[in-house]
């Protein structure tokens, strides 16, 4: 009965020639039957038994990230038909990202053999060719011809292997039809990743649950599993699905695993994927699962307006605001009608910019990419242009050159130069909007998070309302110029104030410049040199063209030559601004300094792993260009008290770097109803409780309180 033979002589011979030390001899295969004698018309249980040497393994029907499923090819006499293999529950071997589903020690693949009703009596030879891949530190293909004989008679006679096969049968996954299992998508599919929710009924308390998917050529269910809260008596899992080709799947099959006390139960399921939960699941919709209630449009519009309003006092926009105040002072003597008109044009500049942003968001979404607030700051070319632009604004404030050619001669009070024409007012609106995007303000996070998941119409509406919020103070003030009485009268101080405002603008340029090396490495130096050439050109233009009397043509030529030459050499040739350096291999630790928080890189798998170990998890989604995030880190996260608390409760600290806008983090932000960073999450120790979403602006008190709650 026992057959162990390796027949691929040629293959073996080749391995020897190639100097391979390993042979396919770490797995033994044999064919066993539950019956010695069976009647025509019966179904006999057969088993392909695989016994692996210690440390070696073979693979399940879905091998996972690598490996190969064991194959059984039958050579059966007429009148005997083999059914499909019932695979025992495999082990999940987490090998970093390369998770595989494997068998160690022993596995019996069960196959029902159906005997035809007209089989004549006598012995039958049943044969099969079994091939597999066995792996330890190396992988080796194995193959064996196995055989067993069955007698056809007038009664059933169990074999001595019958009990053994029936124990394996009881361990095999059960039919999952009684579980009322369901599967649905968590949201729309953008890009190549989408989240799937699986839910089923369980009477017993379940300490651990998982889903082992079947293999597919068109999509892959990722190995990480997240248990999310569900109604009593139900288990709900969240799995990421990555698409390789074609449409999103409509059907999902595999094995549901649940551990109840010492019992490990497994159920075969094949489920249609619903596009959203049906009525039965509405009371526990996925939004509730992560603690975000589906918001109403009106409330979100109010949030959008308030968020826009508060943006005015966030550090990003402050230099522009100062300019605006100056503008008002300059206009104080003007006709109220002119003041109102300019106020409206400023608002128009803000609104048009927001419409452009909304259009970009819609376009990026339509192209199948992820969109996020402030996403343009992850774009290297945009940063280069903006750094140059902000530098020019600073130079303008210093008086190196003027924007409005009609005002190039300043009067004693310096008022003329400060008077914004319609173009200036519009430009201010645009600049305020661009500079506002790396900040999020209170209320704005929730509003934008809502907007980014909506239809095009609502995205436009929400963006316009944020713009209205940002512009509203000036529109109101330009209608009520009475308040200007409280400001000092126009005079020389205004010129000084204007120059003084050049410094925060210069600081903004420095901050933007600090983001450049991320994308261009050491080549960033050339942008710095270009900025100097740009400044020189601006000075030549201001000094010899705008303020000069003779040889203006020469001045224009010199300024242009500097600009074009500087651009071609420094920006095109040296900086190579069109080809930023892309992300290289990522380092393991993200710790800043010896005492810093021991950050690990965020991934859904890292969260799941830490939660499975019963640790609280602290997640900080941040980006280098996000000023609110940087402030949070300085003030409330990387501070001694929080560090000590993280150690005390043994929390895992995970950092999600959104600087380059990875899709995985955009998906996660959207899941928590956010469109951008910051997003700080605290997952409690109990893996069944949902994470707590911390507010956008943090204090150490907020963080410590949340961690205290999570550690309990």
């Amino acid at each position: 009965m026992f057959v162990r033979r390796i027949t691929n002589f040629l293959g073996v011979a080749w391995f020897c020639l190639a100097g391979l030390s390993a042979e396919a001899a770490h797995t033994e295969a044999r064919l066993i039957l539950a019956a010695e004698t069976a009647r025509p018309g019966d179904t006999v249980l057969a088993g392909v038994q695989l016994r692996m040497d210690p440390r070696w393994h073979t693979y399940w029907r879905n091998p996972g990230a690598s490996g190969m499923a064991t194959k059984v090819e039958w050579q059966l006499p007429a009148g005997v038909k083999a059914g499909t293999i019932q695979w025992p529950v495999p082990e999940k071997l987490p090998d970093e990202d390369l998770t595989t589903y494997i068998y160690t020690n022993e596995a019996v693949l069960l196959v029902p053999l159906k005997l035809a009703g007209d089989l004549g009596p006598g012995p039958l030879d049943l044969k099969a060719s079994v091939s597999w891949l066995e792996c330890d530190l190396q992988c080796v293909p194995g193959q064996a011809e196995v055989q067993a004989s069955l007698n056809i008679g007038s009664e059933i006679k169990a074999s001595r292997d019958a009990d053994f096969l029936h124990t394996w049968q009881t361990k095999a996954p059960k039919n999952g039809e009684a579980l009322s299992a369901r599967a649905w998508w968590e949201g729309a599919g953008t890009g190549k990743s989408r989240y799937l929710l699986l839910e089923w009924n369980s009477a017993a308390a379940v300490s651990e649950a998982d889903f082992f998917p079947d293999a597919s050529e068109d999509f892959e269910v990722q190995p990480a599993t997240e248990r999310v809260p569900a109604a009593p008596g139900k288990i709900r899992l969240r799995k990421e699905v990555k698409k390789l080709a074609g449409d999103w799947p409509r059907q999902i099959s595999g094995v549901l695993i649940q551990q109840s006390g010492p019992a490990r139960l497994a159920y075969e399921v094949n489920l249609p994927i619903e596009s959203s939960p049906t009525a039965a699941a509405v009371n526990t919709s996925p939004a509730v699962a992560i603690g975000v209630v589906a918001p109403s449009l009106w409330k979100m519009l109010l949030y959008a307006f308030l968020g826009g309003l508060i943006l005015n006092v966030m550090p990003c926009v402050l230099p522009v605001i100062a300019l605006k105040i100056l503008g008002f002072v300059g206009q104080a003597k003007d006709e109220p009608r002119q003041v109102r008109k300019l106020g409206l044009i400023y608002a128009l500049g803000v609104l048009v910019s927001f419409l452009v942003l909304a259009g970009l968001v819609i376009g990026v979404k339509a192209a199948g990419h992820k969109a996020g607030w402030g996403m343009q700051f992850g774009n290297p070319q945009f940063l280069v242009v903006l750094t140059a632009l902000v530098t020019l604004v600073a130079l303008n404030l210093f008086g190196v050159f003027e924007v409005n050619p009609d005002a190039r001669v300043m009067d004693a009070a310096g008022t003329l130069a400060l008077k914004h024409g319609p173009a200036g007012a519009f430009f201010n609106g645009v600049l305020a909007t661009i500079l506002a995007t790396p900040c999020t303000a209170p209320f704005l996070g929730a509003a934008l998070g809502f907007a980014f998941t909506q239809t095009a119409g609502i995205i436009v509406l929400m963006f316009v309302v944020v713009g209205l919020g940002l512009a509203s103070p000036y529109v109101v003030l330009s209608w009520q110029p009475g308040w200007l009485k409280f400001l000092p009268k126009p005079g020389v101080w205004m010129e000084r104030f204007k120059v003084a405002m050049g410094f925060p603008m210069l600081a903004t340029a420095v901050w933007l410049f600090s983001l450049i090396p991320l994308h261009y490495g050491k080549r960033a130096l050339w942008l710095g040199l270009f900025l100097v050439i740009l400044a020189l050109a601006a000075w030549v233009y201001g000094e010899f063209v705008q303020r000069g009397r003779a040889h203006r043509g020469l001045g224009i030529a010199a300024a242009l030559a500097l600009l074009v030459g500087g651009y071609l050499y420094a920006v095109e040739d040296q900086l190579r601004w069109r080809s930023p350096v892309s992300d290289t291999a990522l380092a393991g630790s993200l710790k800043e300094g010896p005492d810093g928080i021991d950050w690990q890189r965020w991934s859904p798998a890292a969260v799941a792993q830490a939660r499975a170990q019963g640790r609280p998890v602290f997640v900080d989604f941040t980006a280098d260009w996000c000023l609110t995030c940087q402030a949070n880190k300085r003030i409330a996260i990387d501070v001694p008290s929080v560090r000590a608390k993280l150690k005390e409760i043994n929390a895992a600290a995970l950092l999600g770097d959104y600087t380059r806008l990875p899709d995985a983090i955009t998906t996660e932000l959207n899941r928590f109803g956010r469109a951008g960073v910051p997003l700080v999450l605290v997952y409690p120790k109990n893996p069944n409780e949902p994470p707590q979403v911390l507010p956008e602006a943090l204090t150490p008190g907020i963080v410590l309180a949340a961690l205290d709650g999570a550690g309990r």
Partner: protein
Amino acid sequence: MKRALTLLGLLGVVSGAFAAAEVGKPAPEFTATDINGQTHKLSDYQGKIVVLESYNQDCPFCHNHYRTGAMQELQRELTAKGVVWLVVNSVSPNYPSHRSPEAARKEWASQKINATAWLDDSSGAIGKAYGMRTTPDMFVVDRAGVLVYAGAIDDRPATSGDPRTARNYVRDAVERLQAGETVAVTQTKPYGCGVKYGS
């Protein structure tokens, strides 16, 4: 007003190109030393099509492609057309399948490898940046440095038999690129043994 419009125009330069090793995005840059001590940088090959092959001769899937000569043939065919073919060996020194540069040079000769170079990636840096999962796991980078194909070498996951009978996704991608067309199959599920990364 003109300035404002220019600025709005500039806002439009947003393009998605950030995450590592995603098809349709710039391929992650790397610098690596080959088994002869030469340094190779991906960006040095801008303007050429680059094929990356995750390699482990001890893996029967990879081995079958070499045993039958099919891999060497494809390497010869594509490099003759100006393609840069980099063999990436990410096996960590913790595994018996690791090759010292000397052993690798011997294997290069005995297997008659026809690639441009064999990169020593025993740190796993390139493998992880590209998300190489199996041997063989193939990547095609176009002339502009964009990753245009990732996945299996062909549609025949097997440790024996002739790979020439299969549909080869890498040849297909390169031929389409050279014909100025877009790549038809951009991503498949790689097959083979897991890459033996350290830690």
